[in-house]
């Protein structure tokens, strides 16, 4: 219960920071919508189901990367991470709170982006939307973990995509499969497995990421 309260306080703080600064969500929204507009005008009309699904995942992945790159900026600016690390709460609560806040931003961007995608390309099936939701969890769990690793390095803007994109390949496979395959069940199952596996790994090892 105390753990849940800590996570809630940390996630609420991130939402409040975004509400004040407004420097992550508007950028994500602008990026994802612009990407669809560019794809719409640069590609032939009526792309195949597989190609359209691929476009969706390229846009989602890079939009998420934009949000993940900003995730630990407030902590970096004033070295607030030191203050959080010293607090007697379980350090994994910092990761979980940040992941929840990042997930909220990504979902908010997708609430706008998915209808735009449907308008420009093709309507999304229920399985595709479920695939996006499951992928979001994995993206935020892994991305937040790597974001915390990258924030302490000098070349953090380079490190995050270099670490994140290879680990996101299974998400793309599961996501494209859930939207384009005739039987999306096993792709959705694959995404659930990915989420569970990486959430547990990140939760258990976050302590070592923030310890000096």
């Amino acid at each position, binding site marked *: 219960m*105390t753990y849940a*309260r*800590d996570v809630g*306080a*940390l996630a609420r*703080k991130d939402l*409040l*920071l975004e509400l*004040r*600064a407004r420097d992550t969500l508007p950028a994500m929204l602008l990026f994802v919508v612009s990407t669809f507009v560019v794809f719409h005008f640069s590609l032939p009309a009526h792309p195949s189901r597989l190609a359209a699904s691929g476009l969706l995942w390229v846009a989602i992945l890079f939009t998420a990367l934009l949000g993940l790159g900003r995730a630990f900026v*407030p902590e970096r*600016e*004033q*070295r*607030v991470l*030191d*203050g*959080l*690390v*010293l*607090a*007697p*709460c379980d350090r994994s609560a910092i990761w979980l709170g940040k992941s929840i806040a990042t997930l909220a931003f990504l979902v908010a961007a997708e609430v706008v982006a998915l209808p735009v995608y449907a308008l420009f390309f093709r309507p999304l099936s229920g399985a595709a939307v479920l695939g996006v939701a499951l992928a979001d969890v994995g993206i935020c769990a892994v991305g937040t973990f790597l974001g915390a690793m990258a924030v302490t390095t000098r070349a953090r803007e380079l490190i995050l995509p270099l670490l994140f994109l290879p680990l996101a390949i299974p998400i793309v496979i599961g996501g494209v499969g859930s939207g384009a395959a005739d039987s999306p069940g096993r792709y959705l199952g694959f995404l659930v497995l990915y989420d569970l596996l990486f959430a547990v790994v990140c939760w258990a090892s976050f302590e070592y990421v923030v*310890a*000096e």
Partner: protein
Amino acid sequence: MLVARGLGKRYGEKRVLRGIDLELSRGGFLVVTGANGSGKTTLLRICAGLAQPTEGRIERDAERAQVGYLAHEPLVYRELSALENLELYGRLYRVPERRERIGMLLERYGLWDVRHDRVADYSRGMTQRLALCRTLLHDPALLVLDEPFTALDESGAALLDAQLAELRGERTLMVSTHDPGRVASLATARLELAA
């Protein structure tokens, strides 16, 4: 109590601390001095539990929850108000009667009237006062203060003098400073780090 033997720290090839021995009993007041780059901040980070030594060992009877650490940076969010920052830390440190304690500290350090303002709008001295409030919020048993007088004006420095005098003997204190004369009358031990 804080005991360190042969403490050293390296960052890759660079050695920033070497062969430090110190012993600070409960209620003691240690003043750490030294030139820029002598490793004061690194030593204080190790003593606060934020960094691990690469050589030697350190024993501390205060748990994480009982350590108050004042760093060069205020460790507060610039886009939040003083009240919101202290509320967050108060929750994470499980401070009993949190609101009363926060109110008392803000009042004492002259930030009550600006408690709803964003920290980004504070002067450097006001931010340092807030950092002191954050450090003292959970009434820590071990206080590790890295150049606490930085940026404080005369009234702020006088407040801190009074606070340190009040805490002396009741809490274990470790203070790094470039002005050891300021806390000389309070100190029970002094450690000078060589550059």
